[in-house]
């Protein structure tokens, strides 16, 4: 018969594992900061990582953004009918895409695409001793593997989010004109009504931190992978779950700090 304390032990073990994972990620972060000065190791790989993390992620980010824009326009129209002037559809689509859904949905989607890929790649390198091999060849693996990925995430996520915001708004605009009884001028009026340039900066700040989170968490779980193929699978799953959770926490944090 299972001990009545088994659930408590399980929670305790989980908590200890989480604390240990945070500690390891912290050490890796410090190592990455120190490794920034070894630009001869990370700089040659930065462009390649920017293409893999950024350019290759554009199609999925735009796909998500365009359908989000369509749904936002339709739901706003459904909600406002008869009570609020229809041009507020433009306000809601613009505000919601730029402040929230553009960065967050892109971040969550890319935690699956980019974070999982990084964790699997680095995790495989760990269990096949390729990271040890790098070390024996006098390469600092943090400078060689982690720094270019995290920098690429920080630089490319904002660019993807700008595109996602634009496509989301354009999709909402197109929907308003084709499926709702709205003119382009009406949508534009609503869009301009509450628009603040700060909204764009807010969106960028969030997306930089999301990009760093997804890539750094992927690197950390990959780097500390143990136990062969099964370990790589676990590391990949955990990287996606943890980076998604951190993105949602950061989302609330930035809203509380920057939107007062």
């Amino acid at each position: 018969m299972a001990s009545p304390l088994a659930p408590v032990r399980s929670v305790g073990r989980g908590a200890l594992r989480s604390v240990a994972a945070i500690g390891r990620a912290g050490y890796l972060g410090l190592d990455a900061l120190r490794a920034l000065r070894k630009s001869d190791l990370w700089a040659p790989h930065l462009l390649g990582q920017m293409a893999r993390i950024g350019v290759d992620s554009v199609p999925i980010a735009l796909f998500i953004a365009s359908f989000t824009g369509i749904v936002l326009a339709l739901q706003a129209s459904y909600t406002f009918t008869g009570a609020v002037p229809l041009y507020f559809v433009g306000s809601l689509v613009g505000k919601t895409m730029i402040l929230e859904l553009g960065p967050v949905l892109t971040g969550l989607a890319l935690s699956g695409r980019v974070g999982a890929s990084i964790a699997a790649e680095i995790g495989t390198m760990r269990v096949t001793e390729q990271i040890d091999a790098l070390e024996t060849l006098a390469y600092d693996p943090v400078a060689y593997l982690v720094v270019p990925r995290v920098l690429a995430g920080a630089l490319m996520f904002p660019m993807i989010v700008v595109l996602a915001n634009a496509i989301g708004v354009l999709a909402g605009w197109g929907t308003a004109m084709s499926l709702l009884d709205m003119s382009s001028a009406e949508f534009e009026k609503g869009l301009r009504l509450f628009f603040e340039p700060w909204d764009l900066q807010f969106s960028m700040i969030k997306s930089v931190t999301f990009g760093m989170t997804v890539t750094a968490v992927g690197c950390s779980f990959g780097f500390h992978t143990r136990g062969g193929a099964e370990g790589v699978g676990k590391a990949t799953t955990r990287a996606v779950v943890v980076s998604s959770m951190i993105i949602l926490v950061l989302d609330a944090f930035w809203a509380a700090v920057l939107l007062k």
Partner: protein
Amino acid sequence: MVDVHKAFGEKEVLRGFTLSIRDGETTSVIGGSGSGKSVALKHIVGLLRPDQGDVWVDDQNVSRLDQQSVYHLRRNVGYVFQFAALFDSMTVAENVGLGLKRMDEWEDDRIVERVTECLRLVDLVGFEGRLPSELSGGQKKRAGLARAIATEPKYILYDEPTTGLDPITTAVIDELIVRMSEELGVTGVVITHDMKSAFRISDRVAMLYDGQIRMEGTPDEIRATDDPVVKGFIEGRPELLPEAS
């Protein structure tokens, strides 16, 4: 290595491991699977740090060196991994030349020449542009050996270089290890449980048992021993080991 202790969680792998490697000689460390041979080897290049004890290479205590000094020391050490550990995304030539790119004195033209020279030594000329996934197990091991020798190291550490290979490829690898020592004067440490290989390539053999060096000597001394643990291992007679009684 002097009185090295290393544990992973509750499991104590090395418990007072002490071993001296003589310059210019090849020393094989033998022992059962999971006895800690690879763990001991990784201490020599600072891939692992001991919980207790010291590891000395060229009068430097590896366990006390800062990271930068460890990287500097590693330029004198080549490491042949058990499963080659070639970089998947790089060609054979890129793998072999990678270590040289970290050394200022090696320019691109010389790197290309050196890569070809190393591939010739391991009989892999013509494989420069292949990816590791396109090589057989033996070819991967030879490419790993080429990568290890490319930087002209003073020391080469071999982690089970012949495990899983057919007898012919094993003989080829053994021959290479002997040539490294005899022609280039490289000091070698070989982790193996292939006794035939160990006796063929080694100047000295040390047996790791229960976290410590049980016996060290020339191949002839090892063959002639009455120690039941060593005798049981080299003759493949488990009934001689203390665990059997």
